């Protein structure tokens, strides 16, 4: 080759090297808004965690790490928590981060227009003794408060005021709906809802960046088959999720790989335990009898469901939270055995030797292969003489049906937002009231659980707290309040040469992405 050709080839080489750090990823849902306080949903919080930051954040193993707060400690006598803020941090527009922004973000995120207000229910007051210290006073001692605010993102008070975005809007638009100004590792440089969102690295970020990206573009692709094709054709570097039925094929395709994990979401069956009668109106409600509920738990062959419907991707579950979540009980980690004969005997003991018929409600677009799982449950229950009429529907019709008590048995998935076992107790196990047990559709009620919940919420000592959580796990298992089935799998696809970290909360953090080739 002649020398001048080599010289000409060099700039080209550099050009490709720079381009290779451009990264494109796709998911089925576009984040509804760029406002970190308006909507509390995984697509929104997951995306914005790349742009905004909280006082604390979660690491690769979901452990709590310092972020905008460099350290924190409980205040004397359990009055609350004191956070020491990182100094010299700047927002993307150059404004300095101080305690005032934290107080502003608290007021904003806990206002009635915010969807994140419940995170601040235990907060009595917040004050800033100096520009780099924030004291958060809680109504009662609250050991898990730092865990519960990992997704509370800090917005610049000056920026919000200058652009008229002091409060989030649930059914309207503010400047913060389409624009973002955080302290995080990436800046939002383009936002076209439903089309694409472009992020570029924040060169002034307070931490040394692990990633090597120069630009990251997010595109929503709703149709899973199109997303898989886009990954295979190289138009997209990473997709989330991969449909279960495409997982095996993707594993065999050259140039792409499948990243498997489990989410923190437990899929379970729930029962109507409060109505006197079944939905059909014939006869008393058998699900009020714990023996009937236990019979159901023993009749469902979870390992068969995992093998056939989940194609080996999911893990069985025995509690409302999976292993690895804070407060998971190691003592009660075994599922009831799969034993149809014993289940039949239990039904006979309860006075239903010939079984009975009931209504099973199920979503068909909420959890992975949800309707197929329900179909399998129906045929397994038929083995012990129970005739379930399956009514599967889109999730937008499903929740109203559950709220209206139109079910005898139902399917539910639950992911603890605080990554703590207290979370499902509060929402699923406590007797339903205006603010507690709000997802306890079946009306399960146990006085001991109700009494333990406030104690668990305010117990500082880890051992005592775990003992109480163990007790709740035992009660819920003994009474078969729910039938936990399995932990939902997490399936991502990426082309070879993309290094990434899959976190169980299904957040895709760009700061851990490295692209090489």
């Amino acid at each position, binding site marked *: 080759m002649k020398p001048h050709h080599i010289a000409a080839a060099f700039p080209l080489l550099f050009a490709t090297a720079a381009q290779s750090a451009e990264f494109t990823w796709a998911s089925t849902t576009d984040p509804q808004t760029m406002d970190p306080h308006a909507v509390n949903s995984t697509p929104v919080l997951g995306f914005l965690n790349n742009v905004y930051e909280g006082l604390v954040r979660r690491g690769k193993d979901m452990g709590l790490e310092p972020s905008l707060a460099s350290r924190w400690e409980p205040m004397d006598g359990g009055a609350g928590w004191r956070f020491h803020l990182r100094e010299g941090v700047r927002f993307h527009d150059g404004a300095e981060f101080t305690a005032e922004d934290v107080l502003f973000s608290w007021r904003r995120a806990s206002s009635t227009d915010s969807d994140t207000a419940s*995170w601040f229910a235990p907060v009595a007051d917040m004050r800033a003794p100096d520009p780099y210290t924030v004291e958060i006073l809680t109504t009662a001692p609250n050991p898990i408060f730092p865990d519960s605010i990992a997704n509370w993102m800090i917005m610049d008070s000056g920026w919000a005021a200058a652009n008229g975005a002091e409060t989030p809007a649930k059914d309207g638009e503010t400047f913060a709906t389409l624009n973002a100004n955080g302290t995080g590792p990436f800046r939002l440089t383009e936002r076209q809802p439903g089309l694409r969102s472009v992020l570029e690295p924040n060169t002034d970020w307070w931490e040394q960046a692990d990633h090597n990206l120069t630009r990251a573009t997010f595109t929503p692709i709703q149709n899973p088959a199109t997303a898989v094709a886009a990954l295979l054709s190289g138009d997209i570097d990473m997709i989330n999720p991969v449909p279960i039925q495409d997982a095996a094929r993707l594993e065999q395709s050259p140039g792409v790989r499948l990243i498997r994990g489990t989410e923190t979401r437990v899929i379970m069956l729930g029962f109507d335990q409060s109505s006197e009668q079944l939905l059909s109106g014939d006869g008393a409600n058998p699900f009020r009898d714990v023996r009937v509920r236990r019979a159901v738990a023993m009749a469902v062959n979870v390992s068969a469901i995992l093998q056939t419907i989940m194609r080996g991707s999911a893990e069985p579950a025995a509690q409302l939270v999976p292993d690895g979540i804070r407060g998971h009980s190691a003592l009660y980690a075994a599922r009831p055995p799969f034993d149809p004969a014993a289940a039949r005997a239990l039904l006979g003991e309860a006075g239903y030797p010939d079984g009975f018929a009931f209504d099973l409600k199920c979503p068909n677009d909420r959890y992975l292969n949800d309707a197929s799982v329900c179909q399998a449950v129906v045929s397994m229950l038929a083995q012990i003489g129970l005739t379930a009429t399956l009514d599967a529907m889109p999730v937008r019709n499903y929740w109203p049906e559950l709220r209206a008590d139109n079910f005898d048995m139902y399917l539910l998935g639950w992911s603890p937002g605080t990554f703590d076992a207290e979370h499902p107790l509060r929402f699923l196990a406590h007797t339903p009231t205006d603010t507690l047990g709000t997802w306890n559709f079946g009306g399960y009620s146990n006085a001991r659980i109700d009494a333990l919940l406030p104690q668990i919420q305010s117990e500082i000592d880890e051992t005592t707290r775990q003992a109480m959580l163990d007790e709740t796990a035992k009660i819920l298992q003994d009474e078969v309040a729910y039938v936990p089935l399995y932990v939902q799998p997490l399936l991502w696809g990426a082309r070879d040469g993309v290094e990434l970290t899959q976190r169980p909360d299904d957040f895709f953090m760009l700061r851990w992405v490295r692209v090489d080739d």
Partner: protein
Amino acid sequence: MLAYILRRVFQSALVLLVVGLVAFSMFRFVGDPVDNMLGQERTQADIERLRDTLGLDDPFPVQYWNFLGNAVQGNFGVSYRQGRPVSEILIERAPATLELAAVSGVLALTFGIGLGVFTAIRRDGFAANAIMTLSLVGVSLPTFLIGILLIYLFSVELGWLPSFGRGEVVQFGGWSTGFLTESGLKALILPSITLGLYQMTLIMRLVRSEMLEVLRTDYIRFARARGLSERAVNFRHALKNTMVPVITVTGLQLGSIIAFAIITETVFQWPGVGLLFINAIQFVDIPVMAAYLMLISVMFVGINLIVDLLYVMIDPRLRGDPAKGH
């Protein structure tokens, strides 16, 4: 004449109102938007407050009346999902759909007429028979499947064309166009074939049968007898006389190309109003659904009205006052 036009316009407006009423009576069955708008940690009080703000508990005629009252002032409400004015979103998304529909229409018309004439003239030839057989595929395969097949062949296997999206677009005021960039033009190919294939085969079969009919008529025989060239006979005389029904059908099909772009847009993640509508259904975004349905019905009713009025111009029998006789 004027009375006829007024009557037709009045009827069209009535149809629109009924379409809106039916649409609003259906929305309650689509589901409840509140669960999508509130997070996991909502309370019953939050649900009730939001339902009240959005007016979801009002009876549907009241909701419809409120919608109409705002719509006549050009206000289609705010999207539940995006929190932005619906009219703004629709204007943003419309160019993608209209460009796709225009390209599909042109493709369908050009290839439909061309192949129709070809298969009529060479009615017993091998190529003509092959085309006729293949055209059955276009009529019988669902759009969804055709789109996926094209993506797998041209994007995944051959790697020639993009698998989704619109490529780079250039902004002209409020209009975004994909016609001016290479990636934009490339991105148009597969979706426009997918969308236009059905219309193409329809036009082709229509032109062929009309053409065969015309070729049998006396004036074509006389034209041949006069020694006119085959070209002049086929194109200047025969084709011209097959065009009237073709134009009618094409006009009506233009509406359905835009309306049925929904499926194609979903398969190719084409950022048009059809994809927006599918999103809106999944999210129970009532303001977007309502505006889209009204827009589509205005379009269909408008096209029908124009076609009706054109008939009056073309056909004098429809024009006269029936009392006067002829």
